[in-house]
């Protein structure tokens, strides 16, 4: 089966605009994501996670190597790859429903059809009753729900998520993770989710891709063989399969953080 996403010997080098140093962010990254798979990418800060996601999105052009979507090379951003950013990237001057409808507007979907789609995704992310609110009237968790709904409503083939729940409080994060799990189950989208949080990576991912830092490359792939419908936080804390995967990923990530400390 052709992978949905294939990353081939990716290398990315850039000049830090502040220090003027050359930074080798990624070197020799190879990975494949199967159709419908939920892949989490985890690693310490500075391992090039966000750069990798930017390259997949087509917002960053890699120095070398390539990204294939269904076997076709990615050359720029496109609506086939929806992105949910770390910060709140929804527009403050648009209401919740107008933000969610934005991708559909851009595609030229007729108004009536747009309204129906928006209603569906408003329900799915639990924002019913907030359609006419502006982002500044919403909590952080709700803003990120709008961002997820906007991406889903545009119906991309792949969802790329860059630490989307990092800026919300711990309680909300747990709820959002369970909701995202349910959404992944319902929509069967291929999802690539970047995070520095080991628990989050294991809870959500069919597989966890652990990145080594400076330069970033794939250190290990840890499968989490638990079906989507059994993933809840109550089970997560008691299930031995979850626990084994969590220990494994934690150890791998710790080695990277330790290496950083020794390097000074």
């Amino acid at each position: 089966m052709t992978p949905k996403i294939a990353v081939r010997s990716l290398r990315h080098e850039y000049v830090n605009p502040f220090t003027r140093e050359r930074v080798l962010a990624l070197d020799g990254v190879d990975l494949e994501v199967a159709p419908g798979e939920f892949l989490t990418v985890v690693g310490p800060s500075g391992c090039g996670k966000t750069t990798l996601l930017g390259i997949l999105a087509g917002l960053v052009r890699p120095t070398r190597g390539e990204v294939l979507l269904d076997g076709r090379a990615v050359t720029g951003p496109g609506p086939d790859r929806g992105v949910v950013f770390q910060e709140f990237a929804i527009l403050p001057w648009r209401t919740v429903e107008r933000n969610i409808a934005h991708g559909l507007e851009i595609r030229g979907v007729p108004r009536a059809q747009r309204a129906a789609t928006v209603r569906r995704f408003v329900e799915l992310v639990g924002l019913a009753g907030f359609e006419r609110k502006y982002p500044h009237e919403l909590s952080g968790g709700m803003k990120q729900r709008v961002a997820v709904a906007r991406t889903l409503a545009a119906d991309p083939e792949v969802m790329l998520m860059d630490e989307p729940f990092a800026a919300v409080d711990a309680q909300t994060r747990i709820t959002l993770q369970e909701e995202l799990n349910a959404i992944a189950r319902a929509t069967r989208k291929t999802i690539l989710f970047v995070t520095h949080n080991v628990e989050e990576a294991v809870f959500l991912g069919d597989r966890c891709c652990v990145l080594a830092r400076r330069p970033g490359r794939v250190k290990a792939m840890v499968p989490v063989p638990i079906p989507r419908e059994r993933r809840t936080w109550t089970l997560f804390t008691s299930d031995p399969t979850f626990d084994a995967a969590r220990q494994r990923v934690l150890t791998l990530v710790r080695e990277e953080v330790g290496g950083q400390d020794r390097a000074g």
Partner: protein
Amino acid sequence: MTLRERLAAWGLLLGGALAAWTLAAAALPVPAYVLPSPAAVLQALGDLVTKGILPFYVLASLRRLVTAALVAAAVGVPLGLLLGMSRRVAEFVHPVLNFFQSVSGIAWLPLMLVWFGFGERTILVAINYTVLFPVVFNALLGVRSVPPLYASALRTLGASRWRIARDVLIPGALPNIATGLRLGLAYGWRALIAAEMLVGAHGLGFMIFSAQSFHLTARIVLGMSVIGALWVLLDYFVLRPLEEATIARWGLVQR
């Protein structure tokens, strides 16, 4: 303080100032024209209104200001937006705009008199110039202040450059555009009065300057009061609501 309390406090302050002024005008051993009393100013007001002179001058000045505002909105806003679209162009023109914004229309007047003559043309050039630069400058700053993340997000939704300009850059710049218009008109109002004093054949600036030749000081004080009062009303009822409508609705300030 509520609006009612503020109005009461202002009333008190105004009453006190008028009383002190009346007292000073009566008690000081100077000719009446040196310090006209509030009563004399009030009389000048009644006189100029019944003769229709004051309404005519007020309308003449406001017409020039409104013309400049419309020109700035029609020309300055699009120009500023366009210059702001590219970071490189914006960085290049930023100090140039800043320079011309700081050399007010008043400082240009001597040269403009040579170029455009003693008449309406000079007044119009001076006020349009003065209003235009803050408007262009702030529209440019507005575009540059929109977080690049918004544009990236739209690109991943498949938006074209034009679409990003329309849906992200222009609405994102609106609060700055409102600020630019408010600032531009505030500068413009001062420049207009100065230009009217030098070359006007009518208008509030002409009124106070020509009154000086005949020692009509009550008329001068009246003109000054009208200049201040008109601006306060314009700012309070038109410009500030415009600025707040864009800023507050989008949660860019906490109220």
